[in-house]
């Protein structure tokens, strides 16, 4: 297991480097710079600004300065007022650089403020979705063929088919205006996170329900479940202790893509509910040509997705010795 994780870490570093380099060049390839505005800047000022953020350096040098760890700026981190004494700078030294669009903040500041919020929202959405979806799927499987099963399946498919912004708008009308239970937007208390979590989690819950139902049905048809029943165990024990793990396995495997889906879904939900999470930074940094923030967000996103995939693979190995033997 340790060797497996170590190898994954090495691959992670390689992947990250590739992703960072690719994003770096992609971003510079698109037209439009971070200091463009309807009212044009004086050319001298524009030149100064670009120099301050090293945008006049050759691309390879900009990339090297961004990655670090050696400080390539003879005058220190000029954009934020350094005096040239810093030896280490760049991502490898833990410095994501100043934001180009939010000139008062460093990328580290912005991420530090917004990531916990997105994580909280995402975990809330995921937990809720898994709980609700699992319950619905198990009930659906156990009561297979009944109207309840049909109703649950229809509801699940409906939520799979609706874009999250539609669900979000309906939720706002129902739970913020018709019955004013929750605030309509903004952030500050746990109540502000409920509607966004519901909107984010709805398609996840629907998928989990389908997966759990299918997994449960498969397991319920297995011999060992029949054996357990034949032994006279109460139905609830049979379902919860013997059949449920079989339903959990496909769900556990789905958690990776589910979390990634929560990450992307949060872009829309955070915009609609004005939640100051990292999702808005994704889109806005690319649109604003905020190179450093976009790179920082890319790195974080990459790390999260990679970590999730690794986690899921770890689950696989723990639960399925055969796959463990294969993948070695």
């Amino acid at each position, binding site marked *: 297991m340790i060797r497996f994780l170590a190898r994954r870490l090495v691959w992670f570093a390689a992947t990250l480097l590739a992703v960072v380099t690719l994003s770096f060049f992609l971003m510079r390839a*698109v037209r*439009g710079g971070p200091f463009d505005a309807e009212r044009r800047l004086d050319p001298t000022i524009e030149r100064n600004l670009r120099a301050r953020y090293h945008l006049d350096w050759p691309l390879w040098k900009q990339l090297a300065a961004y990655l670090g760890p050696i400080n390539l700026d003879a005058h220190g981190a000029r954009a934020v007022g350094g005096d040239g004494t810093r030896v280490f700078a760049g991502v490898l030294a833990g410095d994501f650089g100043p934001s180009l669009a939010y000139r008062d903040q460093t990328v580290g500041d912005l991420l530090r403020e917004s990531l*916990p919020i997105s994580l*909280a929202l995402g975990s809330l959405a995921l937990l809720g979705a898994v709980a609700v979806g699992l319950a619905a799927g198990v009930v659906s499987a156990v009561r297979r063929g009944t109207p309840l099963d049909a109703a649950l399946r229809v509801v699940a498919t409906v939520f799979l088919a609706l874009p999250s912004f539609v669900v979000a708008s309906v939720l706002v009308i129902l739970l913020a205006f018709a019955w004013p239970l929750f605030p309509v937007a*903004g952030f500050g208390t746990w109540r502000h996170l409920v509607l966004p979590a519901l909107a984010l989690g709805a398609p996840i819950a629907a998928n989990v329900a389908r997966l759990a139902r299918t997994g449960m049905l498969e397991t319920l048809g297995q011999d060992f479940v029949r054996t357990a029943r034949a032994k006279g165990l109460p139905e609830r024990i049979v379902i919860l202790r013997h059949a449920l793990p079989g339903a959990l396995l496909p769900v556990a495997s789905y958690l990776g893509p589910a979390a990634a889906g929560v990450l992307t879904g949060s872009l829309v939900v955070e915009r609609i509910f004005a939640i100051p999470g990292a999702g808005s930074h994704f889109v806005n940094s690319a649109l604003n040509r905020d190179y450093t923030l976009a790179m920082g967000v890319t790195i974080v996103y990459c790390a999260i997705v990679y970590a999730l995939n690794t986690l899921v693979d770890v689950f696989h190995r723990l639960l399925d010795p055969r796959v463990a033997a294969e993948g070695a």
Partner: protein
Amino acid sequence: MRLVAEFRPAILAPMSAAGRSRTLRRIVFLSGPGLLVAATLAFGRGARLPRADCAFVNGAEPATLDPAVITAIPEGRIVRALFEGLVVRDPRTLEPRPGMAESWDEAPDGLAWTFHLRRGARWTNGDPVTADDFEFSFERLLDPRTGAAYASQLFCVSGARAFATDVDERGAPRRSFETVGIRARADALEIRLDRPVPRFLDLLACPQFSPVNRRCLEESRARDPDTAEIGWLRPDHLVTNGPFRLLERRPNDRIRLAKNHGYWDADHVAFETIDALAAEHLSTIVNLYLTGEVAWIDQQPADLAVRLARREDFHSAPYLGTYFYRVNVARPPFDDPRVRRALALAIDRSAIVQRVTRAGEQPLYACVPPAMPAWSGASMEHAATFEEDLVEARRLLAEAGFGPGGRVLRPISIQYNTRESHKDVAEVIADSWSRNLGIRARLENQEWRVFLDTQRRMDYDVSRSSWIADTADPYGFLEIFTTRNDNNRTGWSDPRYDESIARAARAVEPERSEALLEAERILLAELPILPIYGYATKNLVDPRLGGFFENPLDEHTPKAWYWKDR
């Protein structure tokens, strides 16, 4: 399902059911605390803020709070609340009023101004506000290394242009600030101008010309040289002299301002705390207002405009902004002014303002918006009805060789930046050109920065534009179409126009207005731009909020606000 197929071996695997469920339980228990940690992180920072006395939606998150560097309206609002310059604008009439300067003297030739600073005015760190602060701040503003976009507005000050543009290879000014006509003498600040500037006080009231505290900057540099340029802007370090101070700043969430009790006019500031929320999605902004979370919003979704406009709390007034299409006069067939005029005449402006924008905008037939005070303005020649305009448009096209039987005008591409309202307007215009003139038009939306870049490169046929005024001066609208102006971007150049504008820059009333009028007439005869409509403000204001006044610059400062029923 693929995943079940994958795991079928697992179910048959020798691991017992109890063992599997044990492992799963372990996993759940391990991940649970992890998620709880994430949740507490989000709230652990003291996320729970007590409600502010008043809140409003500011729009996009401000890029910076450094007065010298700001350009956009959301930033201007916050800076006006935090800082105060020599002169401020009256909230109702926009007339210049004493700010940090108690009084001022203007020399008879209009070239020298002396501002007497208010005694007893202090910064939030206790320092008195002195003329030295202003000299320091103006030097900082004009220094090209600061990157101040509005430095060029001060080039009327003697020596300013040379100081700001004559730089060495490191970008530092070669001349000393002694060569610039801004000097602090005891309690007064003296400013010398190159030429008389008729609305100089109005210019000085712009938030970009607010002072900054030198000690604050120096302490920031001493504290952490690596982040000196931005460290001083943090809430616990920022030193201000305006009606409010910076209490909290949460990017993309809110900026919380607290009353500055040391402010000279603090007795008239009603609110202890104010929140400026950052929100961009229009539906969300309206929802925040309708649930009472905020007291003022200035944007709404376009298709709600009609319903909202009927409300009591909706206030609309003409605004000093214009919406127009730039035409690339370097590209045939747009080099023919008859074609441009035909296109301009065939725009159904009343349909656009009544059916698309619907918030009180006015059809525009000029370059300077009708909201401009004390300005009669020239107007593009047009008939009384749209149908007559269409007749004239068709006649012009025929004259230019594109009529029936003549050449076919190639499809025109209308470029706009990605926004629903721009798309709607473009669709109406394209529809009109197609139905009435038989000209096909393609709509091309581009993301904002690419759009700006395309416009700058003159890689367009017709490109959507708007211009918002900083001061109530027609010069600002007209000077951008001179030949070498960076904001021209149409390829249009007319020496008579340039000459009129140059004359206006040097003259005083009434010659100044005459020169500007002449320039506008030339512009509207040539039509390198197609005027469409003049903006109107769209403010939804809580009826309980007092001290809120409509004005043509749509400037609203929280200093004057109060709750009516308290």
